[in-house]
């Protein structure tokens, strides 16, 4: 790697709660490393209205496979580590499929229509999955996500295990980014800088945001590095691959409007909810604990 002579903005966020295990590594920089036994499940969150199971196995998700057209934006190198709780401690999980999907710099998702999103059906940019290696890692090259009215900056992710074509485990959640860094990027970097009045303007104003899902990140001028350490407990979830709150009646789903224009109309009444499963109750308890 060559030394860059150009002076570029450079900021690092090391204090974000980069997952239950992430803080271990950061603390260890000062010699305060903690043991793996403290690993805690990653919080489930809604998949939102724009999940599409594209089955696109690729690291660089910036382009539409049909046209090879690359979405403009600040390059983001995102690493996700997946650990599994086994016998009360954590170990790297190999062979898990990790999908990510997010909006472009203008706030739109690909391959969907409606719910505030422009019609992008047939396009498949900013979507893809990787399979965790023996170290539990996947790596994506994408762009820093844009924003849309009603949600803070986020990237959706889904961790699945398969037995053949059958999903044997599923965890769906979202990653978040440091507010001040997002604000600076949006203010100074095209094409983000052409859009004004981000709302909500901070993570805490977002109804879905959870601080345990903040990435550890650095903005090094012409690119961003971000990482998150996820922890799954497949024993808990293996009974039902849809244990995460992806159901359309979930509060998170109704609050995740999707990309594009503001959506301030009243929300439709949710369909009658089935009797909550123990896992759903667990998620609700987590929400309540977060206030």
């Amino acid at each position, binding site marked *: 790697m060559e030394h860059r002579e150009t002076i570029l903005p450079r900021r690092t966020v090391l204090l974000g709660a980069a997952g239950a295990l*992430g803080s271990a*590594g950061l603390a260890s920089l000062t*010699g305060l490393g903690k043991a*793996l036994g403290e690993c805690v499940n990653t919080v489930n969150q809604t998949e939102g209205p724009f999940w599409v199971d594209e089955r696109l196995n690729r690291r660089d998700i910036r382009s539409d496979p049909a046209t090879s057209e690359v979405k403009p934006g600040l390059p983001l190198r995102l690493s996700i580590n997946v650990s599994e709780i086994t016998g009360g401690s954590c170990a*790297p999980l190999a062979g898990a499929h990790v999908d990510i999907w997010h909006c472009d710099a203008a706030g739109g998702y690909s391959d969907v229509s409606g719910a505030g999103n422009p019609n992008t059906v047939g396009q498949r940019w900013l979507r893809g999955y990787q399979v965790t290696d023996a170290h539990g890692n996947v790596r994506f090259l994408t762009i820093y996500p844009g924003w849309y009215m009603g949600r803070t900056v986020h990237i959706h992710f889904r961790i699945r295990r398969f037995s053949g074509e059958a999903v044997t485990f599923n965890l769906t959640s979202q990653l978040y980014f440091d507010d001040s860094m997002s604000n600076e990027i949006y203010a100074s970097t095209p094409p983000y800088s052409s859009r004004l009045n981000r709302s909500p303007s901070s993570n805490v104003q977002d109804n879905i945001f959870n601080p345990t899902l903040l990435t550890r990140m650095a903005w090094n001028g012409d690119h961003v590095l971000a*990482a998150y350490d996820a922890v799954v407990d497949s024993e808990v979830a293996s009974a039902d691959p849809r244990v995460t709150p992806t159901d359309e009646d979930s509060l998170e789903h109704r609050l995740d409007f999707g990309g594009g224009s503001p959506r301030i109309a009243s929300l439709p009444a949710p369909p009658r909810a089935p009797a909550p499963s123990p896992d759903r109750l667990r998620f609700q308890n987590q929400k309540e604990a977060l206030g």
Partner: protein
Amino acid sequence: MNAFSFRTVETLLGAALLLLSPALPAADLFDNLDRSAAGAEVLSGEGRLAAAFSGGSTGDTLQSVTLVLARTSAGGSAAVEIRSDEGLEPGALVATLTPPGSYSSSPQPTTFGADAVPLEAGATYWVNLRAVEGTFEWTWTADNTGSGGGFSTLWDSSDDGGAGWYTHDLYPLQLRVTVGGGSDEPRFLRGDCDASGAIDLTDAVFLLLFNFAGGPRPTCLAACDSDGDGQATGAVTDAVYLLMYAFLGGSPPVQPFPGCGPGTDPGDEALGCEVSQPGCA
């Protein structure tokens, strides 16, 4: 006094003198080599691996880094650099380390020597590994603990020659970072002319080949001055001295011996020692 007891006394005297030398003992700023290996990252071509550590106290100088490496190809060599931190990724080049003379085909601690690289207290540095030729494996551990004030679980990977990095902070690569505690002088073992980490017949042969047959120049000529007379070139005396010691019960090399250390003889500076020997961490 027979030859054995004389040598024993001299050895003890050498060790005592080493302890009294002004250089502080080496210390490990980062060490997780004793953790159980859980896997290995494979490295070849444009692949790069880097592990972060933070500088220790003011005045520390880097003496060596030891990686648990295996060379899985028939041949090849590896290179290690120290780089500054650019925000969760390696930045500017700080130093290029001296590679070992050989590599094991199975995972073994493999030391790269540093020429007393000064480290800024509290700053983050990166140990960057690349395969110059061939394929290497750097082991990692599922244990996120380690010793030393500069220990970190942060590590990076690149598959495009370091143009773009991905950052990780779990299950660190296995590494030891040794600092010299303020000494800025290269450390060596007197008599270890070929920097193999041991004193044997090959050291004498290496010196003779350099002096009389156009062999490679020792990176630490002071180490070849076994008798400490300030001379190591143009004569056979040091080679003979080593052979006498090794096989005929002759006197041992002068300090630094039997442990590594900086040169203290008047002639050492003139002879020169470009970098600390890899085995002198």
